[in-house]
């Protein structure tokens, strides 16, 4: 479907280079018949009409406008965040307000928010914060009375790679920051911060059973978070970022190995209960959000 670009602007410079490379952008769209997305879902963007680049680019949805219930067939919208890392994102960075591009979505299975959680712990690395903004906004929106506490750990190479901290603060989340060079927050990674938090506050501050971890970032970061969650016997959902061709479950190109075929016991989302035991799952349709116990990171 055709989406109109309402805004495409730089929100951060990762590097001091004069080129667009590594810069972070925010893009806002208006789109006919775009059904309301759920946090963690993604869109496939065709950056131009040529065969170079050839494939669509999968992009996490960063913000979902919360209009009063969108009428079917009405105009929907969404925002994405992206970092210029190659040919496709470079072309995207040149697009202007009013330009039209071809978008497929919303796609995939997003995060599922269990009822009655008292604390959501968010761990994000680099551009992995994007879906977490939509997620925390959704938690705030749907659990206004529940007073769910939201704790966010953001990590990046330098202070220029720390995005969206204001978004999280605005909704009353407690934000902790780590950078690899120590230029903002603690020196280290978001996983270091998260680990310290979990270990320190294990006994007194919060109830692990009523808490849940959501993580998005590089795969080795997700693995580290999942290992800690398993160790502490906590629920953990991870959002994966893989190269994709179709985004619809047809090409089987973006698969991830499943961890256990008996999975489904601890998971609160009935949809993901085991239907079709196979060694691989598609990130595009079975995910991109998985229970960390579901897959082999």
């Amino acid at each position, binding site marked *: 479907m055709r989406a109109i670009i309402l805004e495409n602007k730089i929100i951060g410079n990762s590097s001091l280079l004069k080129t667009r490379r590594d810069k972070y952008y925010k893009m806002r769209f208006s789109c006919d018949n775009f059904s309301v997305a759920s946090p963690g879902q993604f869109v496939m963007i*065709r950056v131009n009409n040529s*065969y*170079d*680049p*050839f*494939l*669509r680019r999968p992009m996490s949805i960063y913000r979902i406008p919360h209009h009063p219930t969108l009428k079917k067939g009405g105009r929907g919208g969404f925002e994405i965040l992206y970092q210029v890392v190659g040919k496709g994102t470079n072309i995207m960075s040149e697009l202007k307000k009013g330009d039209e591009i*071809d978008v*497929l979505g919303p796609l995939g299975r997003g995060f599922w928010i269990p009822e009655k959680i008292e604390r959501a712990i968010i761990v994000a690395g680099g551009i992995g914060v994007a879906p977490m903004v939509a997620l925390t906004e959704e938690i705030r929106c749907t659990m206004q009375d529940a007073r769910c506490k939201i704790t966010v750990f953001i990590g990046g190479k330098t202070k220029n790679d720390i995005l969206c901290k204001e978004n999280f603060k605005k909704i009353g989340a407690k934000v902790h920051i780590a950078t690899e060079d120590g230029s903002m927050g603690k020196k280290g990674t978001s996983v270091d911060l998260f680990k310290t938090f979990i270990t320190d506050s294990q006994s007194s501050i919060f109830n692990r059973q009523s808490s849940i971890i959501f993580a998005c970032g590089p795969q080795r970061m997700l693995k580290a978070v999942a290992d800690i969650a398993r160790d502490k016997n906590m629920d953990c959902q991870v959002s994966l970022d*893989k*190269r*994709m*061709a*179709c*985004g*619809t*479950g*047809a*090409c*089987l*190109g*973006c*698969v*991830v*190995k499943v961890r256990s075929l008996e999975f489904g016991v601890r998971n609160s989302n009935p949809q993901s209960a085991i239907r*079709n035991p*196979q*060694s*691989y799952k598609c990130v595009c*349709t079975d995910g991109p959000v998985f229970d960390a116990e579901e897959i082999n990171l």
Partner: protein
Amino acid sequence: MGKDIKRVVRKDISKINLSVNIAGILMKNPVMVASGTFGYGEEYAKYIDLNKLGAIVVKGLSLTPREGNPPPRIVETSAGMLNSIGLQNIGIDSFVNDKLPFLEKFDTKVIVNFFGDSIDEYCEVAKKVDSVSGIHGLEMNISCPNKKEGWLEFGTNPDLAFRVVNAVRKNTRLPLIVKLSPNVTDITVIAKAASDAGADAISLINTLSGMVIDIKTRKPKLANIIGGLSGPAIKPVALKMVWQVAKTIKLPIIGVGGIMTYEDAIEFMIAGASAVQIGTANFIDPASSEKIIDGLKLYCGQNSIKDINEIAGSIAI
């Protein structure tokens, strides 16, 4: 005045015959979707009206489910992509029980693409679906190694190709299409072997073997090291092979390889194809095949062609 002209054109277009008969499979138009690019149909039902398609060739099936290759399985290339999915599939029984009922709801032809590790396995799959209603034809993928006898690919050796096609022929009454691998010295030799063995139609081409290397890590970008190239990059190769084979054998040919637009489809038909398959284009635009069908109609209208079958093999040399 303008309105009248439009009406006349529309009336003419509605009279154009797009239907084709490929080896007894009567299709409402010559546009099929290629195996491995359209899942089992339901993946795309949200994006396109399956009733409009000439046929759906489902993801390749084997006797038992296959896990496929480890990731990464795909990588983008210039005007194309490389894949090494490794024939992951749910197995023929699950297809018949769980996926076929959905496809039967649509007014389109269902063609089962299948493969095996041995001649026996090919025959077993063919036998299993021979009397299943709702399956209108078979497409054999012979680009697989013969694991029982020396691992040579069935599709790269005329003798092996003959034997496997001939054996399957004896085990099915369904129209039998054989899909050829382009990774051979002379495609016409293999096409002739398949024809002699009793194939009813030939589809060509499967993906071209290729690889991509990451110059930073010096590692291949696919876990499987090599994969199959598809997309517009391979179209000229496919077109040439369709032309060559059309000159050599009498069977109907289904052209496949990098078709993105109706103009591409017409090219294949002029070269000698009676029908076409849309593959990788489905990933780029799920509505590709529908747009191509509309385009074919338009092309015929504009060129006073009353029957699409007139185009097949009309190359002017």
